[in-house]
């Protein structure tokens, strides 16, 4: 008999393989050198990602990310964001999150429409928040774009962060007397070891400046 639909077993197998493929995670190795990369001496703002007020953008900085060579000859990968026009100052929060044991050491440049640097935030000003490196900057009317660039002086540096965590897991026990649930609280600690690399994941968040807390 000819089947018009795939056999259920084949369908299940296909779905399982598909899900397995989705669940598979290719480890992204750290990029520790930009030798051989041709880098421009100005930021490319044409390819900048456009953001609107209150937007959150997750931007991978990988092998194909644009590359900038500064006046001293050092090279940096970077992500560019075209900022929305505004009449009032607002905040841009930039975070670099660890991925597969490496993390982009960020610097932040605010530039005008010609790519001239108006203000910058150094790598040292990016502090650990949770497991990410982040810093915020005030954005003023007239600021055109935001550049998150890797800090070449930090590439290859290793860091270790001690992170303590707690969790509660609920267990249900059933007996002749009925069912009881109780929560077991446990703690853990681990060292989060990362190496600074030219690649990584950057998250840019635009938000208004809170008036008071």
């Amino acid at each position, binding site marked *: 008999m000819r089947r018009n639909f795939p056999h259920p077993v084949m369908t299940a197998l296909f779905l399982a393989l598909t899900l397995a493929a989705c669940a598979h995670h290719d480890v992204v190795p750290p990029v520790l050198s930009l030798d051989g990369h041709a880098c421009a001496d100005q930021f490319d703002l044409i390819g900048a990602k456009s953001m609107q007020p209150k937007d959150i953008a997750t931007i991978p900085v990988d092998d194909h990310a644009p590359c900038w060579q500064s006046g001293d000859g050092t090279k940096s990968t970077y992500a560019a964001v075209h900022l929305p026009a505004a009449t009032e100052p607002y905040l841009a929060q930039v975070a670099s999150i660890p991925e597969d044991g490496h993390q982009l050491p960020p610097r932040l440049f605010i530039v005008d429409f010609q790519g001239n640097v108006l203000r910058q935030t150094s790598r040292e000003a990016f502090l650990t928040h949770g497991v990410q490196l982040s810093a915020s900057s005030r954005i003023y009317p007239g600021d055109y774009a935001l550049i998150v660039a890797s800090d070449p002086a930090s590439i290859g540096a290793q860091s270790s962060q001690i992170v303590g965590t707690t969790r509660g897991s609920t267990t249900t026990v059933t007996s002749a007397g009925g069912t009881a649930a109780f929560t077991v609280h446990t703690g853990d600690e681990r060292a989060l070891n990362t190496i600074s690399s030219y690649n990584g994941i950057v998250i840019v968040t635009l938000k208004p400046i809170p008036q008071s*807390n």
Partner: protein
Amino acid sequence: MHHLRFAVVLAVLSLGLGGCVTPMTEIPFDRQAAPDIKTIGIITPKAPDDPAVILASNPGQSFGLVGAMINSGMQANRDSTFKAFLAQRNISVADTFLQNVSAGLVANGYKVTMIPALRNKAGFLSTYPASGGPDQVDAYLDLVTLNYGYVAAGILDKTPYRPFYLLNVRLVRANDPSAVLMTDAVFYNPINPPSNAISISPDPEYQFVDFDAVEANPDKAVAGLQVAVQKTAATVSGLLR
């Protein structure tokens, strides 16, 4: 009743260290945009009177109020022991912190004045001294220490006691305190570190497998807390660089 009060305090502290502290939204200081801020008045900081030595997760939490009461008693013993260690060495954590913040601000080029204030509620001051007068300052620095002492994430050897220090900080313009120039949360060795507070990783030199080890090395334990205080203070002054 006494134990019940301790149990409530313990529950609050555990929640705080468990990541349920809600830090304020970070506002960065833009020194270039505020060149008139030259003299900073440090308001009398808010801080707990005594250190806390906290087991952030423990078996007692699984046994309701009775377990909490037992743990509160154990924590009270640890707290008083560590408090005695500080007292025996004439160390005031609040003074050490204030001195370090002040020195850091001076190193950053600010003139620093201490502004006495009564603090009878938690959190930042709701009203600041009127500007002008002999203590003329350009901005007020409001420092609120949430808690400090030692904490272990759990009871196992792999979760040792380490020093911690949790702080909220705010800088407001003296002639218009509604203008928040900077605000942030600085947490040294937070358990379950939130992504909206600065997390300072603890110095691995100062770890104690259990509280017996703390008691056996009081000088080192006190030194570890002082490192926490110094690094937290340095981070605060760094935010105003």
